[in-house]
């Protein structure tokens, strides 16, 4: 490239991404297969929750993912704003939909797990409610990135929101817990998971690792398409400038 800009050389990133992607796909597949095998076939039913404990093997890992991706969003936004690194903006923009996806999965599987336990589809359990609020933080971030005509503006605004949001997550968590204990109706038993013994821990960890490598794979794909989209925009702009 004649006048490649040295500030953010995405080609180096694209080369790395292309190298890493096949491996992370393979690892994800292996982890998923082994995880699912253990989760669905080779682990005992829980004495208290019965077979429905198998939902936990997807519910808990996706909850962990929804929170860790939001932290990823926070770190990417910090890097983007402090060091003005355009790739970090794209990483945040690529990660947000994945995080929202995992949060949605957490909510749906949480409700499906709650139904046999308490007989209702939705329980205002402290953790589930916090995840519900987190879901709207994700939607806010995604909406803000696309709300401005100039994608650069949207990225910066969303980065600031991610930082403000991240600072608020513990506050929201604390206030929802406080609110939950305050209104602790007799009927709602605490939704803590079953005591996790060895045979259940391994599928849980395998599934969590599988989800993490899945996140890495999809993130690398999405960042590459964000880079292409920005190149297309730059091409069109220079075409417009004649």
């Amino acid at each position, binding site marked *: 490239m004649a006048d490649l800009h040295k500030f953010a050389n995405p080609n180096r990133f694209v080369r790395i991404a292309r190298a890493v992607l096949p491996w992370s796909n393979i690892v994800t597949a292996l982890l998923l297969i082994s995880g699912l095998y253990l989760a669905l076939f080779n682990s005992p039913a829980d004495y208290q929750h019965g077979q429905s404990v198998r939902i936990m093997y997807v519910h808990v890992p996706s909850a962990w993912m929804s929170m860790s991706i939001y932290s990823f969003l926070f770190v990417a936004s910090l890097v983007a704003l402090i060091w003005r690194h355009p790739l970090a903006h794209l990483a945040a923009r690529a990660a947000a939909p994945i995080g929202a996806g995992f949060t949605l999965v957490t909510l749906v599987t949480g409700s499906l797990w709650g139904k046999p336990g308490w007989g209702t589809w939705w329980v205002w359990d402290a953790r589930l409610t916090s995840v519900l609020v987190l879901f709207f933080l994700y939607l*806010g971030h995604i909406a803000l990135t696309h709300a401005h005509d100039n994608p650069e503006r949207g990225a910066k605004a969303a980065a600031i929101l991610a930082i403000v949001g991240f600072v*608020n997550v513990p506050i929201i968590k604390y206030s929802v817990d406080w609110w939950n204990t305050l209104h602790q109706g007799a009927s709602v038993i605490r939704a803590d998971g079953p005591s996790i013994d060895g045979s259940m821990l391994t599928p849980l960890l395998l599934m969590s690792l599988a989800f993490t490598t899945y996140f890495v794979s999809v993130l690398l794909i999405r960042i590459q398409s964000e880079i292409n989209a920005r190149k297309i925009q730059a091409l069109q702009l220079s075409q417009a400038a004649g």
Partner: protein
Amino acid sequence: MTNQTTRNGTFAPMLALLGRDLRLSLASGGDSAMVVVFFVLAAILFPFGVGPESAVLTRIGSGVIWVTALLAVLLSVERLFLADYEDGSLELLALTPLPMEFLVLAKVAAHWLTTGLPLLVATPILGLLYHLPPAAFGPMILALMLGTPTLSLVGAIGSALTLGSRRGGVLLSLLVLPLYVPVLIFGTAVVDAAISGSGETAKTPIMILAALLLASLALAPWATAAAVRQALE
């Protein structure tokens, strides 16, 4: 010809901005009156939905008052920077010797005086409509006094972030409402504690509301100033 800006403290410029904003909002036919009317009207709708039984109304009273107050602040905070952004004043405000963070504080103060304060004045009326016991009026006013500035501060972040965006209003509420959850929880808790019994239990939520206010006094100006700066790029 050096620039003789005597940096006579940060308050004169802040007061100048505060004074201008107050004069503007009074001149433009008191948009604070509209905010109060929305507040009372929205709160009046609930009895049509849930029925007039006073036991029910008392039970949901503080929650309804807080949610409608929160929505009233949200609706009015959208225009906080919009007018200045559209007529080019925001650029010039960023060029004053005073850091943007202080100007944001002045604007939020002006916003609170024109919306938060009128809401406080209108709250007793709703208290009567919802048959809240007299013991609840004091804590309700105190909770709103601590809560509404926080709502204005956090709302300012949202309004700066949505400057120049296409769907301002709806986007603003999507960004800001999740951040309002803690203020709503502890705000209503103050009144519930006052209604249900010993005033003692009301102390904790009041302290937390005050903590939330101090935290947003620290975080919001930085975030809003950063959002305004990137909106001016």
